């Protein structure tokens, strides 16, 4: 009986959805991105990528015969701003939402989208618990932290480091990754000699570096973001301290080397999904060329590119489900989308909304400040 009732409600919802969709001659796709605040460069990149993709899709005839319109809201890289942005997007007739970057920011918006049945595809949020809450409309094109934690432990083992210091920045992303790596490293017999957090947004980290140096590790695993990583490397060099640093994927940003300086950045290892220019799909190569032509720069990072994949997956979902109904799109993405050719490689989603398959690589910064893919 209950199922019949649900079916009835769903049918009614569909009918209403169908009417509004007919009334509108555009399909609106939301983008929630940190256009301001300390992750603004990521957010601006996300916006540029999604707008370019929408433009290209519209040139090919849009989706379901309608033009795609991107509706952008700024989450400021801040959970409170994000919940307001999410509420605004839910009232603006969007059929699905791409975004956002930081895990804690995404977390603040999840329930809001899920409640109204809007599919949300996060692009930079890797905290494990985001997909452990049973939201049926939540997906991510980013890999999960536990995958990265495993990769961190494996890489440290392969590089032969025994005494490890772990530093995070208390954001839910960085702490999640640090905890995961800490547990794995201990279980594989490595010694964790230091575990603490810095305060992001400051300039002077010498107090922390002095303390880290006192713990005498073989390698420092820093799970925070690139602005702090750049400063750490720069100030580490000023202290004449040679121990290598291994960063998490949030340090993968071209600005890292600019902040640290080439000399200080040389030898820095980091884990990351492949960078935009290391992407080997033909789609990615063509898109990057178009992007460079339009904006005269490369996308800031892989995370912004993953927002592009989020957008493409939504378009594929709408086309595949032949509907702009959130439940139908989500169902299609969960069950029918298999090995969709994304910019960052094949995309499928499991039942939780996580992306399937190994995504991470190990990079090292060379003397010219280039990020070189390491074969380990």
């Amino acid at each position, binding site marked *: 009986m209950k199922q019949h009732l649900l079916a009835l409600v769903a049918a009614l919802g569909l009918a209403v959805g169908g009417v509004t969709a007919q009334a509108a001659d555009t399909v609106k796709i939301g983008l929630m991105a940190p256009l301001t*605040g*300390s992750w603004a*460069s990521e957010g601006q990149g996300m916006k540029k990528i999604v707008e370019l993709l929408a433009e290209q899709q519209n040139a090919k005839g849009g989706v379901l015969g309608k033009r795609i319109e991107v509706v952008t809201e700024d989450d400021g890289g801040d959970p409170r701003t994000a919940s307001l942005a999410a509420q605004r997007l839910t009232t603006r007739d969007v059929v699905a939402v791409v975004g956002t970057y930081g895990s804690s920011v995404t977390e603040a918006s999840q329930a809001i989208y899920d409640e109204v049945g809007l599919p949300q595809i996060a692009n930079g949020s890797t905290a494990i618990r985001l997909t452990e809450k049973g939201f049926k409309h939540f997906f991510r094109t980013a890999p999960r932290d536990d995958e990265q934690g495993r990769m961190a432990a494996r890489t440290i083992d392969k590089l032969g480091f025994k005494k490890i210091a772990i530093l995070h920045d208390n954001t839910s992303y960085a702490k999640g990754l640090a905890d995961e790596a800490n547990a794995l490293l201990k279980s594989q017999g490595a010694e964790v000699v230091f575990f603490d957090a810095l305060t992001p947004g400051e300039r002077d980290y010498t*107090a922390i570096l*002095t*303390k880290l140096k006192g713990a005498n590790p073989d390698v420092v695993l820093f799970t925070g973001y690139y602005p702090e990583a750049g400063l750490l490397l720069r100030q580490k060099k000023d202290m004449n301290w040679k121990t290598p640093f291994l960063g998490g994927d949030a340090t993968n940003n071209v600005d890292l080397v*600019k902040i640290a300086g080439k000399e200080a950045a040389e030898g820095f290892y980091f884990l990351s999904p492949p960078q935009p220019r290391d992407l080997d799909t033909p789609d990615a190569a063509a898109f990057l060329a178009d992007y460079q032509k339009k904006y005269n720069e490369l996308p800031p990072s892989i995370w912004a590119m993953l927002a592009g994949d989020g957008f493409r997956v939504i378009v594929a979902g709408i086309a595949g489900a032949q509907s702009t109904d959130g439940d139908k799109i989500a169902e299609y993405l969960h069950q029918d989308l298999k090995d969709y050719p994304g910019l960052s490689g094949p995309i499928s989603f499991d039942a939780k909304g996580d992306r399937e398959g190994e995504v991470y690589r190990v990079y090292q910064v060379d003397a010219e400040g280039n990020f070189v893919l390491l074969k380990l």
Partner: protein
Amino acid sequence: MEEFFQQLTNGLAVGGIYALIALGYTMVYGVLKLINFAHGDLFTYGAYLGLTLLTSLALTDRLGFALGVLVLVLMVMGLVAVLGAILERAAYRPLRESPRLSAVVSALGASIFLQNTLMLIYGARFQVYPDNILPATTLHLFGLYLPLMRVLIVLASVAMMAALYLFIQKTRIGTAIRAAAIDQGAARLMGIDVNRVILLVFLMGPALGGAAGLMVGLYYGQINFTMGWVYGMKAFTAAILGGIGNIPGAMVGGLLLGVIEALGAAYLSIAWKDAIAFLVLILILIVRPTGLLGERVADKI
């Protein structure tokens, strides 16, 4: 023990910057009883203007390192001082007779305006100073690693603070500023042009804040348009710690806050560093509600 002294020098370098910015808060508060929330953003302007002047005029290439940086410091201080004066005219003077809350709201508004203007002009990405301008010498003394630039930063901030102190204590204009801080009405009756005193305060405070911004840019290399927020908060705290309205208090408060942070991070917990610093602030305010060197009991915002 070596680690203790290393942390002490780390703290002093950070504290020197806090102290320079704190002076701007405390001077304005002393004369106007206003917290100039836009002061942190003037600090950021110092960093950005410094970057623009440095790269566009190539001062260090033409004049050599020492002279080039000196000219740069003076130019940045001058420009930020003008900005401070404009801020006073545009955002505070029209509200001089209004309730004090209006001026506080105006200060917050000015802060948001300045910050976003900077983002629109320079973009949201981190800006980076060229990294080959400063000598990257690191002194190795008594087992301590002291980058030469950190030593210079501390010396420069102490020199600027000393100059300001002498100016306030020993000159006629300084006396006028002190008089206006004690009682504006009485100062006016004694023939002091209070508007000019206020203007002067809004020239000197931002000039020091701008110099601090330039030093942060030159040494740490990485600047962004929101950096004034963290530094502003810390400097504001330092000003209260030392006794707001009191100039030596701001200097002591700034240096002390830097050292507390460094030692707290070293011996207690890095993650709790700020909490420790604020705990010390609360304890000091419980014992001395006017701050370490504050004398007059002024009602605070």
